[in-house]
C-alpha cells in the first residue's frame, strides 16, 4: 500500500473515532491471544542477553518489533482487516464528517 494512501485511511479512521475503537479491540485481542506475554518474555530475554548494559527503550523497540510483528496471530490480523473495511464502508451511514468541515 502506498504510504500516502495508508495515511488517508488512518486520517479517516481518526476523524470518525474509528481508530480508537479499533485500537482498543486489537489491544484486547493481543492480550487474549497471549501475544503480549510472548513479547514481554522476548523483551526480558533481550535485556538479560545484553549483559551489563541495559538497552534503551528505543534499542529494545528496534530489536523486538520485527519479532513481535511476526508473532501476531493470523486470526487477529484478519479480524482487524475486516473491522477496518467495515468502518470505511459504512462511513456514509454513520454520519461521516468531511475533512473540510472540521
Amino acid at each position: 500500500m502506498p504510504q500516502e494512501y495508508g495515511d488517508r485511511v488512518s486520517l479517516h479512521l481518526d476523524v470518525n473515532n474509528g481508530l480508537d475503537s479499533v485500537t482498543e479491540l486489537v489491544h484486547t485481542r493481543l492480550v487474549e491471544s497471549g501475544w503480549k506475554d510472548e513479547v514481554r518474555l522476548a523483551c526480558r530475554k533481550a535485556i538479560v542477553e545484553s549483559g551489563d548494559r541495559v538497552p534503551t527503550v528505543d534499542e529494545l523497540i528496534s530489536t523486538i518489533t520485527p519479532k513481535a510483528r511476526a508473532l501476531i496471530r493470523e486470526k487477529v490480523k484478519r479480524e482487524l482487516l475486516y473491522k477496518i473495511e467495515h468502518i470505511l464502508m459504512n462511513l456514509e451511514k454513520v454520519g461521516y464528517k468531511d475533512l473540510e468541515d472540521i
Partner: protein
Amino acid sequence: MSTVGCEHFQEFKSNPNNLDTLRWVHSVFVVGSSKDKRTGLNYNYHQTKIMNSFCHTCNNRGPNLHACIDCVFFGCLPHIREHTKEEHHDFSLELTYGQVHCTKCGDYIYDSELDEINKTNRKRSDTFHRRLFECSTWNPTEEEKDLLTLYTQRVCITDKSQIGLRGLVNFRITCYMNSVVQVLMHTPLLRDYFLSERHFCKTDSESCLMCILSNVFQEFYNGDKVPLLLHKLLHFIWTHAPHVGGDVQQDAHEFFIETLGLLHKHCAESINHTSHAVVTNNCSCIIHESFTGSLQSDIVCQKCKGVSTTIEPIWDFALDLVPGALTLVECLKHFTKAELLDNFSMCESCGLPRQVTKQLSIKTLPTVVTFQLKRFKKSDEGHGKVATKIQFTEMLDMTPFMSTKKADSPFPSDNMYSLFAVINHQGETSYAGHYIAYVRQLKDHWYKCNDEVISRVGLDEVLFSEGYILFYHKHVLGYK
C-alpha cells in the same frame, strides 16, 4: 516509595510552568478530553488532536508519534529524535501511552509526578481509555512487600512447564471422581477464581466444599509432582451426597452435577444470600456465573400458530444419540428440532386442546457449556452402552442453536466455544469400566489424565476419542 526520574527532569520540574505545559499537552494529545471539576465544563480536544497529530517531517500519522515539550513539533519515531537532537530540546511526550523521553539520557524516564499527571488526566476524560491504565508504576502495599520477600522463587511458565498437572490416586473405584476433578481443575474460569482466592468462607472450612476444592487447587498448582490423594473430598462426598459416593462405580456425569450443586450451595452461603433459592437464575456465585445458561421452550399450536414460551435455567445439555446423527452439531440440531408432541395440549390462545409442537432453543449461553452424550440406555439387562462415534470439533459455534439469531456476519461471532476437556468412559456398562479425562493446559497442550498417570497427547487423539462428557469454554469473554 516514589519513582524519581533523571536529574534533567528534576531540573525541568523545578519550574512549575514546565509541568503545566506537560500536563496540558498530555490532556489534549494523549487523553483527548478534559472535564473541569469546578465549572463542570467539558473540553473536547478531538479536533485539535486530529489536526495536529502528524509527523512534521514526513507527514505520516504514526506510528509512535511524539510531541516536543519545548516547542510546537510533532514527529514519528526517527524524526522526533532527530528534531530534539538538532534543536537541543530536552523532552518529548509519546502520544499513545503518555511516556516521556529525555534527550540527554537517550531513554524514557519514569517519575511519580508523570504517573500523577496520567492519573488525573485520565480521570477527567469523557471516555474510558484502557491503554492509559497499562503504563503506571506499581507501588506494592506493605502486605505485598512482605509476600515478595517471603516468596522469592520465580516460576516461568513455558511450553514444557508441568505446573497444574497432578496425578490422582484411585481408591479402587474413584476414577469417576478423579476425572471430574481433573476437569474442574482445568476449567479456566474456576482456576482463575480459586487461584485469586476469591472465596471467603463464612462457615467452618471442614464442611465447605468450596474450601476443600480451593485446597485441591493449591495442591495442583504448587509445582509438586507426587500423585494426590483426594481423601478429604471423598470423605466429604460420602457424608454429604452418599448416593454418588458409595463403594461402587458411579456415573461421572451424575457426580459432576452433584458436585456443582454442592459447590453452588456452599458458595451461595458464603456470599451471604439471606433468602437464597437454589433455582433462581440470577445467583451471583461463581458456579452459576460459569455454568448456568437458559433454555427457551416454544410450544406452538398447530391450529392457530399461537406460541407459548417458557424459559428455564440449564446447567448441562444432555444430548440423545439418535440414528443418523454422527456429529455433535447434528446432535444439537436434533436437540433444538421442532417436535410434534403425541398428546394434545391445552392451547392458551384457542383455549382448546390442540396438537402442538415443542421446540427448544438456547436463550442464554453459559460460559462453560457441558454436553453429556447419553451413551447409557436403561434396559432390562442394566445400563447398556451405545458406543457410536460422535464427531466433535475443537471450535464450536453455538449461534445456530440460539433463540434469537443475530444478523449474519462472518465474524466476530460472540458464540464461539473451544473444547477444553473431555471425559471418556471405557467399558460396557455405567457400573463397570473406567473413566479417563483429557484436559487442555497452557493454551493448546492436551494431557490424558488416567488416575495417577498424566501423559501428553495430541489434539487428534482427543478428537478421535469416544467422548462421554464434552466441556467447551467460551472462547472470548465479554465484560458485563
